[in-house]
């Protein structure tokens, strides 16, 4: 058997373990990004001026600074300074989540601003408070519209998890490097890593597409052929 193939077969269990860690960080980061991203978007659209400014500054920071730099800043700087004794895994997931919240907030903001202004007016006219209107009228519509953008964010963030190896998280990249340095089969092993990322992307994107169809509002044609 060619040594490249042997190296891949040998490394596969380890890389699959790495995939578990990659997916774990990804899911945590997506969840954190969602939980923070929704209020950030609402603050940017409907918040009073100081809150809008605060949310805007947050978004500027996380979109403007490379994720690798953030990882160092938080892991060696802020988390240590705050006396937080977070594992590498949790630290990486947290930083990825904070960054993702900035990007996700812009996806949600776009969807909110794309809704017809009459939706909010009608909700207010029925006596809903702005909070009620946002929770039961605006967000349910905006989040549906956000799924395609969210699927984009999923696939980008998945690949961003690769930076976590610099602080020692044993995810796919870390394990690939390790296997490659032992066997010198760099080319084959990185192809294997690439395939793993590709499969994870495809699975997630498919699932989100399915979600999009499931929550589709009846009567709205979302796709079809032009005649």
């Amino acid at each position, binding site marked *: 058997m060619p040594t490249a193939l042997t190296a891949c077969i040998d490394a596969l269990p380890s890389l699959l373990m790495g995939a578990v860690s990659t997916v774990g960080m990804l899911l945590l980061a997506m969840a954190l990004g969602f939980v923070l991203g929704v209020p950030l978007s609402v603050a940017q659209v409907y918040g009073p001026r100081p809150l809008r400014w605060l949310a805007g500054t947050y978004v500027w920071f996380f979109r403007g600074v490379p994720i690798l730099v953030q990882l160092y800043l938080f892991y060696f700087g802020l988390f240590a300074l705050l006396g937080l004794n977070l594992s590498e895994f949790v630290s990486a997931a947290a930083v990825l989540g904070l960054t993702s919240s900035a990007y996700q907030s812009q996806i949600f903001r776009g969807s909110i601003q794309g809704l017809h202004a009459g939706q909010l007016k009608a909700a207010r*006219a*029925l006596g809903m408070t702005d909070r009620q209107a946002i929770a039961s009228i605006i967000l349910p519509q905006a989040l549906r519209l956000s799924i395609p953008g969210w699927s984009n964010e999923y696939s980008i963030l998945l690949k961003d998890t690769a930076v976590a190896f610099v602080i020692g998280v044993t995810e796919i990249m870390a394990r690939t490097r390790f296997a490659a340095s032992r066997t010198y089969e760099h080319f084959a092993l990185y192809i294997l890593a690439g395939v793993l990322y590709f499969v994870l992307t495809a699975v997630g994107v498919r699932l989100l597409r399915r979600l999009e169809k499931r929550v589709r509002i009846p009567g709205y044609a979302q796709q079809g052929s032009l005649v």
Partner: protein
Amino acid sequence: MTDSPILGAANITKRLGGKTILDNVSLRLDKGDLKVLIGPSGGGKSTLLQCLNLLILPEKGQISLEGRDIHPRNKRELSSFRQQVGMIFQDFNLFDHLSAFENVRIALIKVKKLSRRAASERAEQELARVGLSDKGGLYPAQLSGGQKQRVAVARALAMDPKVMLLDEPTSALDPELIGEVLAVIKDLSLAGMTMLMATHQVGFSAQLADEFMFMDQGRIVEQGSPKELLVPGTRTQAFCSKITELAGEVPG
């Protein structure tokens, strides 16, 4: 009448983009009134209607409900006021992600805090009242314009409003659908609902309205019963005959 009106507006002034859109407008709606706002496009009808339920806050002036002044800064008071003032929009503004039934029910649950069961029962009743019992499961995108507007009426009625404001409820409808919406409005009026409606349906209004208000450039420039105003020499008469001539009209 010296009693407090159901809905009163005193000296409403609204400026937008450096322009005075409403110039010291006052009006009152008494129990069972159907008053009609007419006038040229851009005259301020929509702005006035939205000021009346405080969807737009006027710079100056006072809105009152049954003699009580409303303070829009007080969130609870504002919400309770708006519940009692039903609003019908030109482009329906049904909640797109909810079925017709859920559109009618949602504020009963979220705002009126009815149980799901009580809210559902009430929603069924209101849909039946506008003749849409069998359409409750359909979403706005699956309804015709006339059906959407009737759902919007049911949604507003479910809140037990003391007064209804209607902003050109039939203007976005195809001619053959106007009749079904006007029929619902007529039933409401005959049942004693207090209403203020901006409309270009002058024939329908002439039959049913207690009063016409002609608005131009942010002021009510003529005001009176259809009989008083639909005589040669008034702006109302000139405007109405121009409309009927141009558009024809589907009789209510």
